C-alpha cells in the first residue's frame, strides 16, 4: 500500500503547485466585491477545467482551479461500514472546527468527504509550499488516523465482548 500512496500524493502535490497560481480578481458581476470565482461561478472565462486524481474509484481527489481560488476535495478510502462511520465522524469533527483550519470548507463537495477552499488572500498571508504541505500531510494523516481508530475500536469491542461473555462462563 505504502509504495502506491507516495506517487498519488506526489501527483497531487505537483498539480496543486501549478493550480495555486492565484491572483486578485474583483468580481465582474458585483461591484466592490471580490469573491471566490470557483464558488460563485460568476464568470465562465476564469474557471478552468477540474482535474480528478484517483488511485481507484474509492480514493480520489478533485482539484477545481479558477483565477482567484482553488477548491480541493478528497474522497477517503472506505472499505466497510466501520470505516464509513469513522470517516463521517472524522469529517464532521473537522468541519465543525473549520475556522481554525482556515482553508477548510464547511461543507464538502457532493460525492467527497472533505473539501478545502484556498483563495488568493490565503496565499498572501501564508507560504504556498506550506499550504501544499499541509494538505498532503492532512491526507496522509486521515488515512493513518482512520486505520488506527479502526484497530482501537476493534480491540475495545473484543475486550468488551470478552468481559461481557465472562459472566456467563462463571455461572456455567
Amino acid at each position: 500500500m505504502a509504495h502506491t500512496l507516495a506517487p498519488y500524493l506526489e501527483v497531487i502535490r505537483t498539480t496543486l503547485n501549478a493550480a495555486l497560481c492565484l491572483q486578485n480578481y474583483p468580481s465582474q458581476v458585483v461591484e466592490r466585491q471580490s469573491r471566490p470565482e470557483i464558488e460563485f461561478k460568476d464568470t465562465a472565462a476564469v474557471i478552468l477545467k477540474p482535474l480528478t486524481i484517483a488511485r481507484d474509484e474509492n480514493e480520489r481527489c478533485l482539484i477545481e482551479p479558477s483565477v482567484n481560488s482553488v477548491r480541493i476535495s478528497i474522497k477517503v478510502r472506505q472499505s466497510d461500514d466501520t470505516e464509513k462511520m469513522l470517516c463521517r465522524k472524522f469529517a464532521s469533527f473537522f468541519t465543525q472546527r473549520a475556522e481554525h483550519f482556515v482553508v477548510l470548507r464547511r461543507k464538502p463537495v457532493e460525492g467527497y468527504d472533505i473539501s478545502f477552499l484556498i483563495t488568493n488572500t490565503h496565499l498572501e498571508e501564508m507560504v504556498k509550499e506550506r499550504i501544499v504541505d499541509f494538505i498532503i500531510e492532512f491526507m496522509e494523516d486521515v488515512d493513518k488516523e482512520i486505520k488506527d481508530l479502526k484497530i482501537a475500536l476493534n480491540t475495545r469491542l473484543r475486550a468488551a465482548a470478552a468481559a461481557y461473555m465472562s459472566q456467563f462462563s462463571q455461572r456455567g
Partner: protein
Amino acid sequence: MPSASLVRRLEEPDIEVVSCHALSADEQLLALCPNSEDIVIFRLVSEKYQRVAVLSKHSQRVSGLDWSCHGRLLSVSEDRTAFVWEQDSQGTWRSSNVELKAPRAALCAAWAPDGERFAVGLSSKDTALCHWEPEVSCWVAWKVGKSKAAITAVAWHSSSQYLATGSTDRHCMVYDVSLAEEGRSPSFGTPQVTEDAAAWINAIAFSNGNVLAFACQDATLRFKALSGGRDAPVQLLRWRGLPFLCLAFVGRSQLVACGFDYVPVLFLQNEGTWQVAGSLDAGPATPSAASGMRDSFDEARKRFRGSTSGKVDATSSWHSNTITSCCPLGDGRFSTSALDGTVLVWEVS
C-alpha cells in the same frame, strides 16, 4: 548564464505584502501599495528609501500605480475610482479627480509615454482612456473596446498612438487611440491587431522596437513583431516553470518576466527570434549583493533551512513569494515587488 545584480532593497517591518508598486524613471520616488487602500510614498535619500507620505483617499485595495514622465502618480483602485497625485511647491501631495465612469473595479493602469493621457483596465470588460479636460479641471474618460471578460493588462506603444490590452477572455487587442485636431481621430478605438492567446493574459509589454509581448497563465510568452504587419507570425515560448504576472522590456532586445516562480527570468532576442536566457536571480548568497555581515548570516540561515526541511529552499532567491509587479527603469535596470513585502531594484549585467 545571465545574471543581475541587486542595486537596492527595500524591506519595511510594517509592510508584509506589496500588491503593486511604481518607481519613477529617475528612481527618486517609489510608490507602493501594502495590499490595502493606502499608498505609501518613499523618496531616495542617500541610497536609502525613506517614507515621506501616505496617501489614503481610496476606500478599497489599490490595484494599479504608475508614474508619468511629468512626475504625476496615477493610482487606481477596486472601489472604481482613480486619482492623479501631484506634489505642490510645499511638498504636499494633492490629488485631482478622475471621471472614470467605471461600473466595476479598476484592475491596471498605465500612463502614455508622452504623459498626456492614461489608460485604465476595468473589470467591466472595457478600458477607460483618460485625458485632461481643462474646462472642468478633471481627467475625463473615453471608453475603448469591448471584450468578453475583465481587462487585466494594458500597455502603450512608445508613440502614444496605440494601446494594447489583455483580457481574461484570452484575447490580446491593439487599439488605435490616436488624436486629431479636435478630439478623437476617425479611427479612434478601432482594433488594429487581435491575437488569440489560449489562456488568460496576465501582462502585456510593448518594446521600443515594435515588438508586442504578452504573458499568459499557461506559462507561455508570445511575441509579435508588429513591424511585420497585423498578420505577422506570433512566436510562442514555453517556460518550464509557473506562469508570469508581469513583463518589462529592459532593452530593445531584452525582456524580463516575473511571476509565480519568485525569480525574474530574462528573454533575449537573437536574430529575430526570442529565446529563454534563464533566471536572473542567483540568490542572496552572491557576494556582489550585500555586505559581508549580511552574507554570512544569510548563508548560515540557508544552511539551517536546508538541513531542516530539505524541500524548496525559501532563501534560494531574493524574493520568497509571488512577484506581483515589475517596472522597467532604463539602462538595463528594473524593479520588482512581491507578496513577501520587499521591493528590489536590479541591474542586468
